[in-house]
Structure formats: structure tokens, C-alpha cells
């Protein structure tokens, strides 16, 4: 579902968004092969700190969740966990073909095809995988979107929570994770 929530920020939110946009913490969770483009983006060659962005180890302090490529059903459960632990406002960027329509894993029994069925996606980057320039450009675009209040996926998720949950249930059965490490 495309994010269609209205832009009706209060003054405080506008001010908050302005400052937030200049200091973004990115959750450092490599979900797919696209994560390999992150090291040059984060380190000195492209240096995303130029944009005021830094990596964050835990979801609770992060602002941006990068979905760097394909998501297996197993990963998706953990990604949903992480996303729901993040504080509002929070933003999702989808990397490459896989997040859009399955990419080369479109006929796999284990990977989902369309990320926006399960989580609200604020911005997509084309490529398989996108180059660091494309990623940097997407960060710059995201920052602009946050400043203008256009990145409203998190609100959309709140408002259409039932729709997202139903999709998650259809494809995953349950989001709660039962494995030997969580018992």
C-alpha cells in the first residue's frame, strides 16, 4: 500500500522534524545482500556522517530502518520486531529490486515479494544492488522528506495497523518468534 497519510504536523512536530533531519541514527541490521554496499557508504569514502547520519546498534534509539535487500520470512519476523521497537517517528528505506517485487528471489518459497505489504516504506532505491552514490542520494532525499514532513510511513502504519497485521499474518502465520534461542 502506498503511504497516503495527510501532512498535518503541529508546530512542535515541524520544529522537531527540522532538528531530527540533521541527526539521524540508522539501525545497523543487514537483512540481505545489499548490506555489502553499506561499508563504503558508512566509512571514509562516502562518509554518511557528512549528512549527519550515524549507525546505531539498537532499534530503540534508531530513526531509520534500512531493508538492504531480500527478506526471508524468518528475517521479516525479526525486522517487524525491530521496527515495532523503534520510537516514533521512524522511517524505512527499501534497497533494490527485492523489496519492490521480490527481485531474483521472486519464486522462492522462503522470501517475501513486496515489503510494503508488511511495513510502510518511505523510499525505494532501484538497483541490484544500488551503488553507494544511490544510497547517499536516498539519504539526502530522506532528510529532505523528513524536513518537509513527507516521510509519514510510521503514521500510516499506526492508522492502518490492522491491514498491516493481517498481511503479516497471511504470509507469516505469526510474528512472535519461537526458536531455541527465545525459549
Amino acid at each position: 500500500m502506498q503511504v497516503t497519510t495527510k501532512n498535518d504536523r503541529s508546530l512542535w512536530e515541524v520544529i522537531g522534524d527540522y532538528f531530527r533531519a540533521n541527526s539521524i541514527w540508522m539501525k545497523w541490521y543487514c537483512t540481505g545482500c545489499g548490506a555489502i554496499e553499506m561499508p563504503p557508504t558508512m566509512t571514509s569514502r562516502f562518509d554518511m556522517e557528512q549528512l549527519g547520519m550515524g549507525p546505531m546498534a539498537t532499534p530503540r534509539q534508531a530513526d531509520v530502518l534500512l531493508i538492504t535487500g531480500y527478506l526471508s520470512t524468518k528475517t521479516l519476523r525479526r525486522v517487524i520486531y525491530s521496527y515495532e521497537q523503534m520510537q516514533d517517528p521512524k522511517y524505512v528505506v527499501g534497497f533494490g529490486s527485492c523489496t519492490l517485487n521480490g527481485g531474483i528471489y521472486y519464486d522462492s518459497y522462503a522470501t517475501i515479494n513486496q515489503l510494503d505489504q508488511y511495513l510502510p516504506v518511505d523510499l525505494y532505491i532501484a538497483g541490484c544492488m544500488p551503488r553507494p552514490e544511490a544510497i547517499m542520494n536516498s539519504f539526502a532525499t530522506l532528510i529532505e522528506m523528513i524536513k518537509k514532513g513527507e516521510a509519514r510511513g510510521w503514521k500510516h502504519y499506526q492508522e492502518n495497523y490492522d491491514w498491516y497485521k493481517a498481511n503479516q499474518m497471511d504470509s507469516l502465520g505469526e510474528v512472535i518468534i519461537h526458536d531455541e534461542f527465545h525459549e
Partner: protein
Amino acid sequence: MTNSTNNWIECLKKETGLEAKEGTASLQYVLDVDKQEAHQTLAYLKRAGFGQLSLLTCIDWIEQGTFQLIFILMHWELGHHLIVRALLDRENPEFTTITDIYPGAAYYEREVYEFFGVHFRGSAVYQKPLFLERWDDMPPLRKDFDPQAYSDGKFPKREHPHVFKANVVEVTE
């Protein structure tokens, strides 16, 4: 061939009557065994110096109606790899667990059970899910499983509502 090489091959032949052939790569050997003999052969091989189980996996020979279990063992002193192969009936795939010989095989057995549906008698844990969570269909690496159909039924795909005009792209709502 060194003496020590001959050693385990000859001893194997003397003790069990089985003959290991040379494989396609150097220092690689292949041994085909019966399902019934496999367990004791593996136990013998471990005693003979093949201390490491590098891999346990399975191949689905759907046309022959069999599964083939593949054990790759390694001899640390000689650097030899030995591929032990055993055929199972595809309709009723059963094998005795080898966790008593190689305890680390427990994870491989869980994997093979999950992806091929081979039962490992005598193991308490082989049915515990490993990779697939809440799997609800036939084991997915069997050749008669259709991943495309499963994916189509389970994961929504994006439909593109475009109408293309010559030189102009327009989106219909």
C-alpha cells in the same frame, strides 16, 4: 599412494568388505554403502581416523525414487576427504541417527529432516525446526515441490497498473 593411504582403505576392505574409490578431486575418496551398513561403517571410519563430519546432506533422485544421504568425512592426519553415500527409499525415508558417532550431526539431521523429510531414528531432536519457521507444506527441497506456486499463494506480488503510450508513460488509477 602412500602406505598410510593404503592403510585405511585396505583395513576397511578387510574389516567390512567395502571398497573406497578415488574421487574427482585429489585426496578425495568415495564410498557407496548400503543403508543397513552405513551406521557401522561410519563408526568404523571414525575409529580409523576420520574424526570430522564436514557435511551431511541429501539429494533427491526423483526419477529413481530414492534419496541419497551424503556424509563428507575428513581425516585430519592424511588430509583425506571421504564421501560416504547411502540410498534411501523415497516413499519411506528413514535412517538411524549418527549423533552417537558424530554429535555435531544433530544440526545436519535437523536440516535434512526439514528440507527433505528424512527421519533419523534414535535422535530426540531431529524434528525440532531449524531454519524454516512455521513451515506448512511438503519439505521444500524435494524435487516435486513447486516453489513458484507456493510463493504465488503465500506472498502477494506487485501488479503494475500501467498503460504505455508511444513515448509517454502514464499511470492509471
